[in-house]
């Protein structure tokens, strides 16, 4: 039986662990504008990046965006997930496919579509101007708001499906029992449904948080050149600056921040809802 996991293990080992070990080694090297990479063994890149106000801001922006988007996605996804989890219809699998449908459109294509909506001459401004709701076109493109909207649209299906799967496993009798004991609809949600869907909320939030932390296309296309998140910044170091050591350093810093928030978040969550 253990052999069954071998292919997946080999793949992860060869294509994830291996390159990451290599990347980590690169992050310890030094950069020179003339020679590009110089063999070294020092954490000075980490010290330099952590002390740099520019990267401090980039990482804070990334973290803030990821936390905000995760929270908003959770709030938006939960009602739909509940509805989907409770749906008893022969069309249910179609609804699930419809939920997944947005994932068929790649981030770049989707963001390009959003650009058509958001520009000064875009659909939203056109409609609002024609309807005399506004007199001046709104600035939507290249704002953090546009990025937040774009990210939520990408990650929403993951959150919905993860939570819906858990809701589905909560017996409906429990809501009836709570109502029978005097719980209003809100109390049924707050005291029974929410705690019992905690594993789904945790899993969905972690998944979405990690996706948000690594946002690239949406941030670049909707945020514009002056809006910086970590993934585009890392890309810039590798491709534009040819500075592999600094790129690798930033990549590991992103990984470290993502992992520590995921781990501490899970622990805090598990304590709150006594998941065992």
């Amino acid at each position, binding site marked *: 039986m253990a052999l069954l996991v071998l292919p997946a293990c080999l793949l992860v080992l060869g294509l994830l662990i291996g390159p990451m070990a290599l990347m980590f080694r690169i992050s310890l090297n030094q950069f020179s504008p003339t020679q590009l990479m110089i063999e070294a063994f020092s954490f000075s890149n980490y010290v330099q990046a952590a002390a740099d106000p520019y990267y401090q801001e980039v990482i804070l922006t990334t973290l803030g965006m990821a936390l905000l988007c995760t929270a908003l996605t959770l709030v938006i996804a939960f009602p739909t997930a509940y509805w989907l989890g409770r749906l008893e219809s022969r069309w249910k699998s179609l609804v699930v496919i419809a939920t997944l449908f947005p994932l068929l459109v790649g981030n770049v294509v989707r963001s390009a579509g959003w650009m058509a909506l958001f520009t000064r001459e875009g659909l939203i401004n056109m409609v609002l101007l024609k309807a005399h709701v506004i007199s001046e076109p709104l600035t939507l493109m290249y704002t953090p708001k546009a990025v937040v909207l774009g990210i939520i649209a990408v990650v929403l299906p993951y959150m919905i499906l993860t939570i819906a799967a858990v809701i589905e496993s909560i*017996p409906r*009798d*429990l809501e*009836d*029992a*709570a*109502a*029978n*004991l*005097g*719980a*209003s609809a809100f*109390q049924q949600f707050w*005291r*029974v449904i929410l*705690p*019992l869907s905690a594993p789904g909320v945790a899993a969905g939030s972690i998944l979405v948080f990690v996706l948000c932390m690594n946002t690239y296309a949406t941030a670049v296309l909707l945020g514009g050149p002056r809006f910086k998140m970590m993934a585009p910044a890392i890309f810039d170091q590798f491709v534009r600056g040819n500075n592999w050591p600094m790129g690798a350093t930033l990549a590991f810093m992103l990984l470290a921040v993502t992992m520590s928030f995921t781990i501490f978040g899970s622990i805090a969550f598990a304590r709150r*809802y*006594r998941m065992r």
Partner: protein
Amino acid sequence: MASLSIENLTKRFGTSVAVDGLDLAVQEGELVALLGPSGCGKTTTLRMVAGFLPPTSGRVLFDTEDVTRLPAHKRSTGMVFQSYALFPHMTAAQNVGFGLEMRGLGAAERQAQIEKVLKLVRLSHLAARFPRELSGGQQQRVALARALVIKPKLFLLDEPLSNLDAKLRAEVRIEIRALQQRLGLTTLMVTHDREEALTMADRLVVMESGRVRQIGSPRDLYDAPQDAFVADFVGRCNILAGRRESETQFRTESGLVLSVDIAPNESKNANAFALRPERISIQPGAKGDLHGAVQAVTYLGSQTEYHVRIGEEIFVVIQQTPDANEPLASVRPEDQVSLHWDRKSPRLVPQTSV
């Protein structure tokens, strides 16, 4: 505790009628069981009384208060679910305290009442356990305590024993009944198990296809069923089609003549002979008017069941198992036996299209 009145209650799902003009009154302190096959509308009725389902028409009253439009969480009924529906993320004590918390009771007052009711169901020592750490019987008692502690106007039991094993079921049956009588709980119970209904209920409501077939005490229904469906549903019964021949005789379709008196309320449409298997006595040998060959003998411990063919009819007879030295004890298949019964025992009832 309140009394319950159900008036002309109807529930339609699309074109199908789940409950069709049900009328029922449950007196204060009375236990009434809704009994019927699955799909007869008994559970739908219970859910409408609890407020989980809105009726299509009709009224539900607790005492004189019309609760038909009142949401479930304001009805103050205490329900024990078939699945128990205990909250898995709460301990037994927290489950029991949930209803009190919803009523805004303070922690100290809650604690006192939780302890009291857990003692009542003999679970004080397991208060801190989670439902998954309790056996089925213990979970059931937590569900009972949780429903009782809120001092409900009405106690509702949805197939409360169906998830227990046979031995436990008999014990819990007696325990719930004793509790219900001691506390004077007005109770509506739903079950498909006739033994459960007969042993626990003050009155039974036999339902079929959303309608009431008969309401009465267990003894009424068992001894004087109104039709063949009720006769068959509340207990085992020999039912033979035919017609009344004279004041003391019934002729089956296959021509067998059976003795039966006329009951005071016998229906004019009576076209079936109904006789409980234990009302028939059996003797070895082809004596008397009614005799035939044994088809099967089934030993059930304290009782023995005989299948006897007479003409084209098969009679099921259940007797106390005879002592080993009695002649009946040596009866084997193919042996001749004769059957007798008191003419007052059988009932003539209308056949039903079931």
